[in-house]
């Protein structure tokens, strides 16, 4: 009798477990379905969309951005996505590097989102509602002495809105925007924040190796990067003082400070490595030694599109 009761209890227990698992699994699959696709569109779609906009009224939200310049900037970004420029001496490199993804794979969505941000002063992208502060809205279009960024008001708006919305531990002591903060910790981005932005804005699958202070431990760095570049978008978190030498100090802070997009990597016959990367509005092919490459990289972000049928 006792034995039969135990067997019955076990059956009920198993059914309960199965039921709970079913509910959980259905929840997961529903959640996955909701966030399982990254938006995609073509450059032609985006160009056609922009060419249909004949008149854009001055936005009340962004008083210092002229509509004609805004549209011209947007058009430039779509037609020549690699020309996107973070500006000289700003901390916008992360936002520019991250924008590579929508400009390459969903230019129409990017154009629509930026237009909505300009017209309405806010936008929902991915899981994020971006509602910039009034200080940022006044500053966009007024940033000066930043080189190419001076004549790109739409990019100023986009970078300032992102820096205003996304915060990490680097921004703790400077959360409020004042003019000039584009060069300061207010706009700084940690490796974690960079990856979080890509996941939440563009719904990409992101695999990250490395950190702000400690380099990733990868046995065969060249082989690893070569394989990753062939399969998806690779962003590198590098030490800017090494990539762009600014002084002759022997001791330099060993931290990641700059984001670039790795486009290609090749081994030269003499053992050096040719890296082709995108930053500051253009492509660069730089020849480096394997040891320099190791010292340079603090983080590797590998991004791939989420598709409905992709294995999770």
């Amino acid at each position, binding site marked *: 009798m006792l034995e039969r009761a135990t067997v019955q209890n076990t059956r009920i227990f198993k059914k309960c477990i199965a039921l709970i698992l079913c509910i959980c699994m259905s929840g997961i699959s529903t959640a996955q379905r909701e966030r399982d696709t990254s938006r995609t569109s073509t450059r032609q779609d985006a160009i056609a969309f922009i060419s249909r906009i004949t008149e854009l009224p001055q936005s009340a939200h962004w008083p210092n951005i002229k509509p004609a310049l805004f549209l011209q900037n947007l058009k430039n970004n779509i037609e020549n996505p690699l020309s996107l420029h973070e500006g000289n001496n700003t901390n916008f490199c992360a936002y520019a590097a991250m924008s590579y993804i929508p400009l390459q794979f969903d230019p129409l969505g990017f154009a629509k989102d930026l237009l909505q941000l300009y017209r309405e002063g806010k936008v929902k992208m991915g899981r994020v509602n971006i509602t910039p502060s009034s200080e940022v809205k006044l500053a966009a279009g007024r940033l000066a*002495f930043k080189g190419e960024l001076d004549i790109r008001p739409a990019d100023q708006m986009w970078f300032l809105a992102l820096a205003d919305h996304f915060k990490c531990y680097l921004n703790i002591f400077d959360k409020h925007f004042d003019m000039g903060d584009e060069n300061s910790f207010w706009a700084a981005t940690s490796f974690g924040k960079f990856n979080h932005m890509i996941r939440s804005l563009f719904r990409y699958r992101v695999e990250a190796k490395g950190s702000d202070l400690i380099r990733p431990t990868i046995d065969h760095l060249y082989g690893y990067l070569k394989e990753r570049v062939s399969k998806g978008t690779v962003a590198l978190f590098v030490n800017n003082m090494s990539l762009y030498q600014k002084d*002759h100090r022997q001791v330099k802070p060993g931290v990641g400070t700059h984001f670039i997009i790795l486009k290609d990597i090749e081994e030269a016959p003499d053992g050096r490595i040719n890296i082709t990367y995108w930053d500051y509005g253009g492509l*660069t*092919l730089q020849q480096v030694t394997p040891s320099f490459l190791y010292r340079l990289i603090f983080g590797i972000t590998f991004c791939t599109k989420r598709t409905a049928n992709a294995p999770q």
Partner: protein
Amino acid sequence: MRRNRPVYILCLVVPAFLLFACRSSRKLTADYYYENEAALTSIEKAYASLYKQRPFSVEFIDKGFNYVSLMLQSNRIKYIYEFELNEPRLQDTLARYQMDSAAIMKMIRQMKDIQCVWINNLDYYVDEQKRSMIFMSLRTVPPRIPFAEKKYYILTFFNQPQFFDNQGRLLANRRQRRLRKIDDNFFQRINDRVCYTISERFR
């Protein structure tokens, strides 16, 4: 009296030292330009002429001025290579990119003689119009100011006369009284087309 002699010496030496340190660095730096004007303008003119053939920049990457980093710009991509100054690979590369290797090598040697770390062409914007200047960084700050942290003497050569305030500081344009920043530095007038600053970084 004899016991106090070091104190008296210190009393004389320290103020003299401080007086030297407080000399107007502005005048000294402008003088440095005029003392070396021939060499500096020769490099600037050579660079401007060569740049028209193909955009490029040259940087000395070591303190001994033995290694250079060469940036060559094509329509689509820019190439960055490092060479030892006497390495045949350097001239081979210049020839491969169809550049006047003799003229560039001469300019690089002139740069080494005057300790010019970096020469580059920088774009800037005035009233939404693109303009360019030549940006030249020199290793040594001309007046050896004691304890000076700033190590690089930077010169900018503009194509057209610039506007300055009454203290000789470079302005953004004629209408705005706003100071212009280049690479995060404010600049002082040497003449209508040439400005300088002293910086911790050469770019």
